[in-house]
């Protein structure tokens, strides 16, 4: 079987993000492979290392030129090759799912890993939309997974806790914290990754059209009171805080 694992490049969580003139300005922002996608890369590698019949692990990134850095990270973690469909400007997740589904069919993959929620869009739509385009089932927010023959078993989060599930391939699985501990690329593997295939593909051939227009992006900084209470006398500090919560914030009786 072949596995397709999706790679998105997002701002490092601790990096400052800026907006100017209603548009995001990511110049100078530290960009990294999305942490949720790393779980998918790691899981694909672990399935193979655990003895599953994995013929090839292919990475797919849809994003601007610099996304290549995140793809190189995934190659250095151990995936076999990668495809980068370069974009300029905003492309919504439903549009991106068209690219993913097409590549999945062309490459003959039977399992797709996607992050549960991307840290740039704050969207959970890509995995589900891809599954629907392929008429495949999906397991989202997966935090435990095993593959036996063509059957996946695992556990995933749902509205009121979690569920154990069983699912026959082909399928889309979205990944999250708890599924595994993604490995760090080692120096030899970073060197090896430079020789692995990273094929560029042309967005125009996929017919992926935005259905949603991004009108503007604004950084909303909520003004906080930043009122510091002297903690040197715990009793007095406690009384003062409770007074503020009762009388000023009016959140306690």
């Amino acid at each position, binding site marked *: 079987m072949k596995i397709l694992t999706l790679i998105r490049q997002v701002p490092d969580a601790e990096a400052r993000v800026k907006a100017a003139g209603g548009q995001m300005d990511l110049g100078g922002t530290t960009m990294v492979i999305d942490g949720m996608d790393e779980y998918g890369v790691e899981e694909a590698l672990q399935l193979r290392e655990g003895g599953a019949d994995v013929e090839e692990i292919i990475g797919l990134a849809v994003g601007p030129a610099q996304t290549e850095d995140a793809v190189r990270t995934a190659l250095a973690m151990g995936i076999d090759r990668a495809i980068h469909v370069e974009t300029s400007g905003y492309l919504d997740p439903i549009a991106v799912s068209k690219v993913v589904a097409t590549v999945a069919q062309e490459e003959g993959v039977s399992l797709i890993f996607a992050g549960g929620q991307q840290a740039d869009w704050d969207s959970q739509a890509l995995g589900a*939309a891809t599954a629907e385009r392929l008429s495949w089932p999906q397991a989202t927010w997966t935090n435990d997974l095993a593959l036996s023959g063509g059957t996946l078993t695992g556990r995933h989060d749902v509205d009121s806790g979690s569920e154990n599930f069983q699912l026959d391939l082909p399928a889309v699985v979205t990944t999250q914290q708890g599924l595994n501990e993604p490995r760090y690329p080692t120096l030899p593997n970073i060197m090896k990754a430079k020789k692995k295939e990273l094929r560029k593909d042309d967005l125009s051939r996929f017919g992926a059209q935005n259905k949603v227009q991004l009108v503007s992006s604004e950084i909303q900084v909520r003004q906080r009171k930043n009122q510091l209470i002297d903690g040197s006398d715990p009793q007095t500090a406690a009384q003062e805080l409770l007074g503020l919560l009762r009388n000023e914030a009016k959140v306690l009786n």
Partner: protein
Amino acid sequence: MILIIAEHKDGQLSKSTAEMIQAARASGQAGPVTALVLGSGVGDVANQAAQFADQVLVADRPELGSYNAELWAAASAQIAQQGQASLVMTGGSRSGREFAPRVAVKLDAPYLEDVIHLQAAEGGVQAQRYSYLARVTETQQASGPVVVVSVKPGAFAPAAPTGQQGPQYDVDLELPQPRLQVTGKNEEKLDRVALTEADVIVTGGRGVGSSEKFGELVEGLADAIGAGVGATRAVVDAGWRPYGEQVGQTGKTVQPGAYIALGVSGAVQHLSGMGKSKYIVAINKDADAPIFKVADYGIVGDVNEIVPALISAARS
């Protein structure tokens, strides 16, 4: 019509359904606000929905007894097509955000996800939503005969009952055979107010010191003031608390009236889950902790001294 896929649990309509109905009415879109109730033995839920919606469509079938993304997507898309819906709305719950994209693809429609504001715009609707770990507010616009929208829980006030019972109609559906088989359920046991519905939340971070101290300080204060209990990822990773209490990027998103953070440093992943709280209170001995930057009230001090004083003051 505007089609709302009702959320319900244990025979009760969820607050999120009334919120979706409010979002639908506030959107200015034309047509009756129609609730679709999917499930098994959902007569009571349909009656509750009829108090809020202009009309209720009911699919009461054994195979809809538990949620499944493929079934919910198929049902929603069929009814949306038959009724020529202009908007299809789901909750911004895990399930709502899981099946809504499938509906959008089935209908070849745009999808506005986890919206906090919605209004009619030329040829369609305009919405606001958060992005970049909730640090950015985006405005998006979508047009077309039909637009799929998921509505962020808590972003809209619940609609008030109309004072009438809207008419109810049974609907026929062609449902696929679901392929994801559920082999076991692990329900969260909550003996306190649910995190996403709590007006006040007390959350503990690694700074509380241990699992035992978490119980003494975080749960102690929550019980003294009638609050929900939250935890940071570090605390969940350490095994002190269950995942169901985790607040943040990979846990729950909350927006209470007050969020009291004990021994929480304030990593961005955590802030993305609680940064929209009305009031934020931070108690931490590290004066440089990032949480103080977003706090309304802060106490630099040892949680072992401050929190017991808070508990006894709240109780007296």
